[in-house]
């Protein structure tokens, strides 16, 4: 049900863009206005989110650990799985973000004859997730060639490394293949594993379909339905220099692609995709476990009513007397 709904939605989005450009000829709308609006929404939404998160303090220290804490000098501590310094936290976070450390550690349980529980390394989600995210990042970075002039050398470098392989004479971006495969895997996993399927909402399928459609439209443009790249560059440069113009003759696929990107951007801050910003703030991961080394001053302390000894004695005077303990007041 969720799948159908999301699929229909993405198809509808594609159709909107197609009809909007081909039938209604709203090229300026789809080529300029919507992208601007989307980016604005994206930035504003994200900033709002992050500011909201970042401005709330975390008075309770609630990290989870993945290894031995730093304590006595001769007990070997896990510097990064249980960091006690800012540096350690940065490394931990980097591991988390760059190689999905937690997911990597994950095991899958299976009941085998015996009955015996066996733990298997749950590698496929980790691998697919990693490949998907990295491909996305690389594709995104490669796209900077549309938005910069001259194109920075690192973009060129990424492009040439990514496009090393060739199919026929055509350069083939590995990341294009990888992202399609990885997203498809993530989708199939979501559908095939009953436990995952059942927790999935339309809002879980939608980003997958959206990204898949985005990648497919991109791949179409590059390998099958050629669009006028110089015209695209003219358009994109116009966008970034706030001097928008819509050149003639870019194919409809491009507008579909661009519209999908716009939807993704606009959708981003209000959906689970904000995890991009959120992971960094997660107090289960970004707090050093240094309670023995450092003391924290928190500014919002409020007074606490303490049960004083007087009150205590008041309550237990009789018993204390019975037990022969000295009491202050008779």
């Amino acid at each position, binding site marked *: 049900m969720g799948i159908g709904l999301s699929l229909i939605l993405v198809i509808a989005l594609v159709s909107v863009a197609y009809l909007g450009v081909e039938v209604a000829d709203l090229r300026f709308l789809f080529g300029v206005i919507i992208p601007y609006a989307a980016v604005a929404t994206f930035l504003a939404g994200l900033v709002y989110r992050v500011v909201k998160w970042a401005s709330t303090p975390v008075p309770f220290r609630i990290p989870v650990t993945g290894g031995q804490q730093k304590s006595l000098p001769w007990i070997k501590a896990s510097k990064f799985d249980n960091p006690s310094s800012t540096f350690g936290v940065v490394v931990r976070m980097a591991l988390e973000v760059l190689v999905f450390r*937690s997911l990597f550690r994950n095991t899958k349980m299976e009941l085998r004859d015996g009955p015996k529980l066996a*733990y298997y390394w749950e590698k496929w989600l980790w691998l697919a997730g990693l490949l998907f995210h990295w491909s996305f990042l690389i594709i995104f970075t490669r796209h900077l060639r549309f938005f910069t002039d001259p194109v920075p050398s690192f973009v060129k470098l990424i492009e040439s490394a990514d496009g090393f392989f060739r199919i026929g004479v055509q350069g083939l971006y590995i990341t294009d293949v990888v992202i399609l495969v990885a997203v498809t895997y993530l989708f199939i996993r979501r559908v095939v594993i009953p436990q995952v399927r*059942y927790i999935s909402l339309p809002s879980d399928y939608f980003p997958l379909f959206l990204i898949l459609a985005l990648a497919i439209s991109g791949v179409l443009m590059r390998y099958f339905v050629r669009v006028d790249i110089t015209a695209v560059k003219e358009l994109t440069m116009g966008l970034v220099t706030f001097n928008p113009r819509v050149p003639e003759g870019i194919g409809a696929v491009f507008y579909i692609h661009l519209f999908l990107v716009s939807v993704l951007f606009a959708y981003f801050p209000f959906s689970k995709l904000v995890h991009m910003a959120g992971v960094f703030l997660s107090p289960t991961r970004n707090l050093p476990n240094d309670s023995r080394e450092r003391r924290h001053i928190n500014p919002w302390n409020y007074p606490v009513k303490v049960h004083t000894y007087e009150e205590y004695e008041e309550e237990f005077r009789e018993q204390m007397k019975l037990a022969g303990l000295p009491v202050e007041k008779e």
Partner: protein
Amino acid sequence: MVKNRDLKPQDIGRPGEQLTKLGKLMELPAPYDDPDMEPPLTEPKDSWKEKHCASLDGYIGIDTLTRPQTKKEEEEFVKKFLSGLEKIFSDETNRNFIQPLLLSFEYCAKCNTCSEACHVYQASGKNEIYRPIFRSEVLRKIAKKYFTKSGKILGRFVGADINVNWETIARLGELAYRCNLCRRCAQTCPLGLDNALLAREIRKIFSQEMGIAPKPLHEKGTMLQLKTGSTTGITKPALLDMIEFIEEEIEEKTGKKIKIPIDKKGADILLVHNAGEFMSWPENPAAFAILFEEAGLDWTLSSEMMGYDNVNYGIWYDDLQAKKIALQQFKVAKDLGVNRIVIGECGHAHKAAAVSMDRIVTGEDNIPRESFLPILWDLVKTKKLKLDPSKNNFPVTLHDPCNVVRMMGVVQPQRNILKAICPQFREMTPHGVHNYCCGGGSGFAIMNYMNFPEFRNKVSSRMKFKQILDAFQDTVKDPGIPKYVCAPCSNCKGTMRDLLEYYGATEKFNIHYGGLVELTVNALVDIKNPFLEFLQE
């Protein structure tokens, strides 16, 4: 009744008797592979059903949650819940946890990693309602429906498709007490989300807003502690009486004459036990005393209010209570002028005092707190204690208390000690930071009303029981060989006590439980009779 594996979060509001019923639980290894070996599941009594919420899975965790008698009461209840829910999303009223709450609330990727990690879910035979994100989803759905624009506009697309009435909320409240808050799921979540935190936030709404919390935690827990100084109700006179008794016992058992220091000003270490130890396992404080004296440490106990009980149930369900207790505990240490507080065998006290409260108590009040484990390992390693491992020559396995490993990261000392003093030590799988909760975490161990213990023994402790049996697979069937589960935590010990009794494991298979210090004392060269009781025959 819907099949357990087809239940969906939106079903939580489904009218009807009972949402789900425990079915085929995770299988246990030999000798419990025969279902007849374990006691059967029971039905809740009708009187409970009438009065409480038994409509989730037939168990009652919150004994103070009672069915409203009138429509108006019900509306009142729902309103209170919603206002509580709103408050946890407000910066003003939930500043302590709003940030992690939002982060955990907003962008779960639904990757299913956490479900693989949760022992309750796995042990229940994968009953959907016990899945870590099930209750989070319910909470999300309710919150989305009532408080977010996206939920109002997009409705089902983002999952805002749940109706709120007494049954829904009560079930959700109950569901919050089907989680041990062990945070194994949080540890494994690739996005750092903390489903345990969400469960705890639900508990918080119930407790802080509606005054509903299990009696053992609240009325007879934190309230009692704030009143008498200890959750057990031990008062100062009682404590002194007990210590005297313990001193006698030590002399009787070991021939050592030890004067346990109390309220010694300016000592290096203030040792704080879980007061339950005095009541139920006095050999534990005794063992501490023996070891610390043997090693010549400068230490003391306190008889001040709050100075002799390190527990802090507040951290399971109520921020204010937690803070109050912690502040008083630290004040005792300050007044005594000790250098550091050392926490005895109590897992959650470790976490509460050493980690959670770190940002709560500030400046000079922030007395250093330490686990006893590195200290003990230091004593063993530097040979300050004369130990003879052959005295412990029976199979021993280690249960890591979640709070000590996962929340704090004290991992190596306990196993190093065991390796040094137990020739037949073997690990459970998994262990260390990846351990499973004993099933008694977050108050389960002491929630003894109605049929809740059955849930604990059958479901939440099941994984641990399985691990124990697995660890002893080689000798389990031989009742001639005693086997020892070392659980250096009062809470875990309480759970083990019930668990082993429930399954008759001690009686039938000679499996025992106990702390780490007892085992260490048992290995002391100069004690003639075994210190552990089951070795005494």
